[in-house]
């Protein structure tokens, strides 16, 4: 009996102890929505991030997609006149999405080294993506960033974070960012960093998943894996659509 009481007490203590660490949970991140579907009418998605953070500090939120090797064509002049692709340049471990939002300008949050260690600026990405001896990739790194920024896949800037008081030395930081339609399906991590006196710490992490809806997945998979069937299907539907419209309008042909 005494052993059972001791065991129950131990279980209760463990439950209490785990709940005692729940203030850490309150400093964790809530990401909404946790799942985003790419449907037929998908045009990007607003993602909101909320977290309880200590009063008075500055914060930064980073959204990161999965990394992979990225091979790009580099532009150059041929014949001294026409701009065209003249070769390739390769980068390793490039995230499919990199969005950073901060409550203050990044440079004022911490030292260059601190930001680099936390992976919050493009210098951090450069050191990870460019092979040490690849001078060409290093020279064109800014162009790669520009390409990604134009697609909305890379963005590092101040703003987009609001604070509201929670009491007990805490405030709620909330950020909303736009997930561009070109972001590929996959798992995205969301990290929240707090800064004080030039030092940054990871307060918490969350994630969300971006996936094809059954309809878009069907079309995409079929086009990739059963190209011949997909092509025949597309052709037959186009013929039927053409005959149907010709029948409805009674027209005598058009574009060719």
């Amino acid at each position, binding site marked *: 009996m005494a052993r059972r009481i001791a065991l129950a007490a131990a279980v209760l203590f463990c439950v209490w102890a785990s709940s005692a660490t729940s203030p850490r949970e309150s400093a964790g991140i809530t990401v909404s929505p946790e799942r985003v579907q790419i449907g037929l009418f998908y045009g990007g998605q607003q993602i909101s991030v909320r977290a309880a953070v200590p009063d008075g500090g500055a914060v930064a939120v980073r959204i990161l997609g999965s990394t992979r090797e990225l091979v790009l*064509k580099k532009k150059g002049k041929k014949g001294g006149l026409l701009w065209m692709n003249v070769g390739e340049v390769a980068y390793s471990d490039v995230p499919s999405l990199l969005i950073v939002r901060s409550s203050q300008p990044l440079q004022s949050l911490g030292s260059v080294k601190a930001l680099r260690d936390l992976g919050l600026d493009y210098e951090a990405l450069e050191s990870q993506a460019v092979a040490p001896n690849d001078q060409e990739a290093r020279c064109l790194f800014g162009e790669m960033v520009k390409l990604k920024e134009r697609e909305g896949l890379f963005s590092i800037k101040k703003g987009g974070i609001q604070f509201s008081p929670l009491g007990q030395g805490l405030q709620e930081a909330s950020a909303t960012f736009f997930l561009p339609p070109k972001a590929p399906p996959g798992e995205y991590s969301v990290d929240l960093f707090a800064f004080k006196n030039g030092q940054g710490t990871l307060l918490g992490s969350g994630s969300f998943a971006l996936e094809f809806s059954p309809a878009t997945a069907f079309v995409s998979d079929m086009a990739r894996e059963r190209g011949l069937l997909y092509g025949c299907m597309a052709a037959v539907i186009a013929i039927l659509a053409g005959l149907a419209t010709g029948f409805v309008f009674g027209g005598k042909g058009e574009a*060719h």
Partner: protein
Amino acid sequence: MDAHIYLPIAHNSVSIFLLLGLGGLCGFLSGLFGVGGGFLLTPLLMMVGIPPTVAAASDSNQIVAASASGTYAHARSGTVDFKMGILLLLGGMAGGTLGVRLVKLLRAVGEADFVITMFYVVMLGGIGSYMLYDSVQGLRGKNESDGVAASGGPSIYARIVGALPFKMEFERSRITLSALVPLFLGALVGVLAAIMGVGGGFIMVPVMVYLLRMPMHVVVGTSLFQILFTCLNVTVMQSWMNHTVDFLLALVLLIGSVVGAQIGARVSRKLKADQLKILMSVIVLAVMIKMLVGLLVTPDVMVSYGGGH
């Protein structure tokens, strides 16, 4: 309903109204002028962010639908020369297959976008300039021809064609010609259709009129017949080998195109032909200049994705 449509093959989301508008504009122009539309659509799609190879392949799929209704109507009117059409078609099939392989090869070496753009610049420049010249001449009253080339003595072309073997009689077109001529010309148009994503009508019609000497009333129906099957082949081959046909894109374009073509056909009856041709040639040349500038001016970004994606 959201105003965007996600294109799973192009991997992009584009305003559905923009696509309907582009399809409608090209349909309107084709309804207005009888030919054209498809050859303008691919560069316009490229301008709104569709990768060139996807734009070209999906345009072919859209042309299948557009030409199917036309072929059906012309076949019922008896204005399709099936014998000539089948020969052009056989050549077109071979040319289309060759063109798709060429696109695949170009994608592998990363030159597909450049070659497609160059083809467009050359073709649009040539056709736009010719149309502008022809319509200005028409307005000045100097255009004496009625779509058939004036004949002087036998030209080098006529002598070569006349010496070719495998002569056939084409009753519907009332001509006798070597079967090799339509086979070769069909192949040429097939290659262009695969690379540029066009049905080739804007090349095929002058080829039939000036090189095959077919009567005009048979030309349009036969051209549509050949284009339908050439683009069918290109659609299937592009889907199979390059996975670049975005069926959703083609479908939205088709809806816009059908409506635009009906409006264009009604408007065309109220306007002068030469004025319309000048307008068309200006549009064609403007698109060509836009693409040419892209090749000549230093790019904003010095890197790009390979293979059209």
